[in-house]
């Protein structure tokens, strides 16, 4: 039982949870949130596979990917939320 | 090693605010619970940094501390009637 195995399981669990909600939920906000959880789960799996338990270091290349992914994720989230507001929002705030 | 037990205990204290987040009853109770979890996360990061002697973790704690109020502020400023 090592650290990276724990995070592999957690990342796969987050991914599964998010996929299930994406498939079964009708609410736009909930779906965008599920998309966020999905991206985090994938990043966790990626980082866990780059983690070297012997040295306690993580491969810098997956780290850079995860970092890029987080910034892209927040911009995509903002764009999707603006779309969701436009589609489903009450006309007068 | 006692230094490694302390972050664990602090993590437990952080997670202890989750029932209040789940039960509510009001929206403000849930936000207060999240705020409290934020402080707990700062404490956990500091303890992890002390336990593993990695000062970069203090920077992560600092970022959390600097932005701790933004979610609560958004909740208060955007709730209720618009001006």
């Amino acid at each position, binding site marked *: 039982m090592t650290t990276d195995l724990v995070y592999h399981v957690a990342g796969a669990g987050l991914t599964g949870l998010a996929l299930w909600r994406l498939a079964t939920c009708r609410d736009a906000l909930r779906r965008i949130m599920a998309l966020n959880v999905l991206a985090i789960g994938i990043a966790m799996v990626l980082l866990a596979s780059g983690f070297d338990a012997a040295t306690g270091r993580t491969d810098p290349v997956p780290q850079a990917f995860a970092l890029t992914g987080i910034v892209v994720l927040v911009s995509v989230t903002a764009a999707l939320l603006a779309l969701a507001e436009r589609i489903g929002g009450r006309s007068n705030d | 090693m006692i230094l490694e037990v302390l972050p664990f*205990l602090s993590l437990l204290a952080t997670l*202890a605010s989750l029932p209040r987040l789940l039960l509510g009853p*009001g929206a403000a109770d849930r936000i*207060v619970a999240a705020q*409290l979890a934020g*402080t707990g996360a*700062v404490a956990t990061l500091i303890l992890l940094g002390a336990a593993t002697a990695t000062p970069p973790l203090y920077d992560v704690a600092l970022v959390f501390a600097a932005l701790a109020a933004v979610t*609560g502020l958004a909740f208060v400023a955007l709730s209720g009637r618009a001006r």
Partner: protein
Amino acid sequence: MSAALFGLGLVLMSLGIVFLFVAALGLWRLPDLLSRLHVLTKADTAGLALVALGAACVSGSLAALLPLLLCVVLVAISGATIGHLVARSVTRRETAP
């Protein structure tokens, strides 16, 4: 000297964690929102301050002191402000028609 400092740091950190648990307990047990806000502004801030002080003792370097101090100041101000604002919005809503 450094062993004494280390021991002091451990004691302070443990005390801080006790405060954090007290804060969590208060969040569970206190009856309403306004009393729960006490937890946010007092027990939690005190706990974090003790933890940071202990960590500064354990790491034993002055360079680590500045970020820790800043953390405590920022969390104290944020907690107080959010506590005030939440209380304000709740009481306004209760007294307003």
